[in-house]
């Protein structure tokens, strides 16, 4: 979706501000939010792209005005409710009012190391890769109203395949509960002038990781 989360190339956000000696968490609740996200992911409650999509669907004004972990918390509440893990009445009450669903596994202290490790996104390929390293490609000009990982600034642009990362689960499908729908994944590199026009710095190159459905031969 063309939300405010898709920030590449936007102006008006000001300078990058670096906080010296930044702590891992600024408030204790931030750590709880991160850990809950990890635990629910380990339990198979939802996928990382469900979390991203839930954040993207926050009202633009909210997305831009709350902190990073507040976004996470709001997205988690949404996934908890929409996926039937708890009711809005229970979150409001601050206590479970009904028994929970059964999850495939629970993150316990004994297996917490597994909860810290990224799961594999590789999937069995459904067919041969359409592109090989060196191939010219053009990204599609698409504007799906749902979750996609093709940023706006890189749509309809001519680039070159630089790496092939194998076949991965496809976020555009996963986020809308249509299954893994495995797709080949490539690093595609663009000249900055292709993206930002003839006045752009010619020494800059930009790459994205693009799933095969985002690409046409060029």
């Amino acid at each position, binding site marked *: 979706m063309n939300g405010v989360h898709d920030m590449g190339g936007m102006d008006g956000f000001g300078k990058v501000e670096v906080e010296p000696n930044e702590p891992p968490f600024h408030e204790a609740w931030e750590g709880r939010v991160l850990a809950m996200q990890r635990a629910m992911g380990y339990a198979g409650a939802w996928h990382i792209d469900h979390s991203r999509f839930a954040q993207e669907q926050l009202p633009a004004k909210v997305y831009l005005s709350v902190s990073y972990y507040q976004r996470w918390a709001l997205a988690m509440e949404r996934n908890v409710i929409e996926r039937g893990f708890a009711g809005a009445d229970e*979150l409001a009450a601050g206590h479970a009012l009904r028994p929970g669903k059964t999850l495939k596994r629970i993150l316990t202290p004994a297996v917490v190391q597994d909860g810290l490790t990224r799961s594999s996104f590789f999937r069995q390929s459904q067919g041969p890769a359409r592109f090989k390293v060196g191939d010219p490609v053009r990204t599609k000009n698409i504007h799906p109203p749902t979750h996609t990982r093709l940023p706006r600034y890189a749509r309809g642009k001519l680039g070159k395949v630089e790496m092939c990362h194998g076949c991965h689960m496809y976020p555009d499908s996963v986020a809308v509960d249509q299954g893994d729908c495995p797709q080949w994944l490539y690093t595609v590199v663009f000249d900055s002038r292709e993206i930002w026009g003839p006045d752009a710095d010619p020494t800059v190159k930009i790459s994205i990781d693009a799933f095969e459905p985002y690409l046409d031969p060029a």
Partner: protein
Amino acid sequence: MAGHDHKDHDHDHEHGSELSETQLRVRALETVLTEKGYIDPAALDAIVEAYETRVGPHNGARVIAKAWSDPAFKKALIEDATKAVGTLGHASRVGDHLVAIENTPKTHNMVVCTLCSCYPWEILGLPPVWYKSAPYRSRAVKDPRGVLAEFGVTLPKETEIRVWDSTAETRFLVLPMRPAGTEGWSEEKLASIVTRNSMIGTGIPKVTP
């Protein structure tokens, strides 16, 4: 809260109580999920503790120092970073999709996630707030030289800048150039000058006399 603008703030409560509202909501969420049997608060404690104490940029710095010291490891790192890093026995394994990108006199690499906050957590720890912020996410792909200047990094005009937008589950680790004046250094001493930002591409390792 970055980007928080009180002029635009039409909630009818004060900033301080908003924070406590967040705390209360997060506590309610944790209580409900615990009572439902989905999460174990002791496991949450362990995850928080891991990110506060064990999982951080020192892990990545070890990788870089070894690559600077051991040409066979460097070659393996560039060929398959997941596999190469897996041989080092880190506090947190890296999953399957780590790619190391090497800075050279010709090319400087920097990493961003314009869509969210994708970052190689397992070896760099939690991303800093600036990495997740709108200014960095919006500008890194359009004005990387300007962004680098704000980090105090000025590159020769002819140096090519390559920006890697982490739009999928691939994670990128920048392998900075080993600075002059570090000949004969131990891996431990080398690791001490590898900053987090130098592994994102917004910094350059420096030898301080």
